């Protein structure tokens, strides 16, 4: 019987090998063969200021996005965990809602909200809080806002799945034993959500590394992240060796993060006791 299951898996496996793994290997190969055989492209990681700037920008923005997303996401997930059934369902609906809208549309929507004569700046000026419009978009702040918005559902769902597995009576027990609200949260609930926090952090950070559309639109053309840098090498400057090297580097970094996560964390546990 077991053998049959393996046999049933075979077509999907072959499909993956032929259409995914083989081309991926091709990409790896280009990174060590173009423009000439060797590790010259990987040397650029250490020597090229241009490559380093793109990597640093990517890391910086991904990190900011992760921190803000986690903070906001944790609050929402906690509220969902403690809300009543109906409220919980509505909250879930509103968390998932942006998921159904294309990233492109969301980015342009943010521009409409945040630009100099956009909804927010106009309102703030209307009530006399500011004189000049605040620079909310077409800069790194705009990129982070757009990315946090896109990443929030991932963080919330991961955290919520983890929190659902926590018995809220533990908090009541802590209160009963004399802990205040804050102490009960900090010493009982928060430590129990550690796997959720770790999982959400890694997930959000990894997904942030590959952002392409959002920085291109909200960054005012001055935020060159790694995904766009790769696209540029493939489409415009035709330095495919450099482009594929960066793609490979990104992939190795992501796999490394996943591996680390799996070492410190039982991934099954992350999504609740099941």
């Amino acid at each position: 019987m077991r053998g049959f299951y393996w046999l049933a898996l075979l077509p999907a496996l072959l499909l993956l090998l032929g259409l995914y793994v083989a081309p991926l290997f091709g990409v790896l190969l280009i990174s060590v063969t173009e423009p000439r055989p060797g590790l010259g492209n990987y040397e650029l990681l250490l020597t090229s200021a241009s490559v380093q700037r793109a990597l640093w920008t990517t890391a910086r923005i991904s990190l900011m996005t992760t921190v803000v997303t986690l903070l906001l996401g944790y609050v929402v997930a906690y509220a969902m965990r403690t809300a009543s059934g109906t409220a919980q369902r509505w909250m879930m609906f509103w968390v998932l809602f942006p998921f159904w809208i294309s990233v492109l549309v969301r980015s342009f929507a943010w521009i409409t909200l945040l630009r100099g004569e956009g909804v927010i700046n106009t309102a703030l000026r209307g009530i006399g809080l500011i004189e000049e419009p605040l620079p909310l978009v077409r800069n790194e702040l705009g990129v982070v806002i757009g990315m946090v918005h896109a990443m929030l559902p991932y963080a919330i769902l991961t955290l919520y799945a983890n929190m659902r597995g926590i018995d809220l009576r533990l908090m009541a027990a802590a209160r009963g034993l004399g802990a205040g609200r804050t102490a009960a949260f900090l010493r009982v609930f928060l430590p129990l959500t550690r796997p959720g926090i770790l999982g959400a952090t890694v997930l959000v950070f990894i997904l942030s590394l590959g952002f392409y559309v959002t920085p291109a639109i909200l960054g005012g053309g001055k935020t060159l992240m790694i995904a766009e840098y790769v696209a540029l090498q493939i489409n415009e400057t035709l330095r495919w060796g450099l482009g594929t090297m960066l793609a490979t580097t990104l992939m190795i970094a992501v796999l490394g993060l996943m591996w680390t996560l799996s070492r410190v964390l039982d991934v099954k546990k992350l999504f609740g006791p099941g």
Partner: protein
Amino acid sequence: MTDRPSYDEQRHLDAIEHFRDRTEGRAIDRRGFLAICAALGIPAGAAHLTPAAAQGTPREMVLVNWGGDAVRGMRTAWVEPYTRATGRRVAIDGTGPSTGRIRLMVQSGRVTWDVMDRNLHTALEIGPEGMLEEIDYSIVDRSKVRPEHANRWGVGNYTYAHVLTYNTRRWGGRVPSTWKDVWDVRGFPGRRAFRRTIDGALEAALMADGVARDRIYPIDMKRALDGHRAIKANTIYYNAIAEGQAAFRDNEVHLGLLLNTRSWPLKQDTNGGCDYTFNEGIVWVAAWMVPKNPPSGRQVWEFIRSTQEPESQVTLLRSNGYGPVNPAASAGLPPDLAAIDPGHPANYARMLPGGVEWYAEHATNALQQYLDAISS
């Protein structure tokens, strides 16, 4: 019953049309074709879906341009007259013939494009690498373009210009008229706009810094990039040209660089709230290029020749603001059209002709340096 097809029927017809386009002639043999028809439940005979390989009719030619209004404009000005005259059909693919895609297509040996709307310096850049067919000047008429607008791998199809575009209401009646004004952040406060491509942006920075027009090329990269570093905090660098147009329209930016083909509709959309000048503009020639071994073979040269007719070029100027590349078309223009034609002598004289040779040699490195300079 109405005689107009319902939405579903129309979709079905579109699918059949698309299916026919994809199968005519080459990709699939007759047996495979009939097998697919059977699998999809389409009666091949009833739908007249017979692969052309069996019938000997020519397949459709594919023209690749950059989409948007250019699809409709080129269809009206060039494709429809050609189809009427020859009976041959031309499909327009607006997804953009970027260099990477050309390279990928030619190297894979499965070329599906016939003619591409690009420019002269790219022709000089990738022609020598074997990506392009040499223009067949025994069919394409060299005398219908200025001598500098025809080279071995590309022949001009229209002119366009990077022009100084500005908001007319922001500075109390004053408007910028030179790139120096654009770099004058105190004199003209407001957000600047440039594109994330080097053509035009580098030249503008040098002119603003006082370099004489005849001394722009070869471009002093350091000087040009220093110029952009100086204003980048006050500047949006847009990707798609339509994005730049929208930024002007929405008052997100107030002065900077845009293509004349966008500045002109912008002026109309904003009822004169935005305007542009050809003064210190950078004028370019777009060009037809043909990928190596195009599927339609030699027919592509006849199509290109048909686009050289002055009337068709005037049509495209009227609909899209593309300047006629054929001087004969510019000569007889009424004043309202002459005013928007970058190739018209009065406008052309105020502009800098883009340095095709410099770009052919340096574009790739310069683009990377430019993006590095404007990125934080």
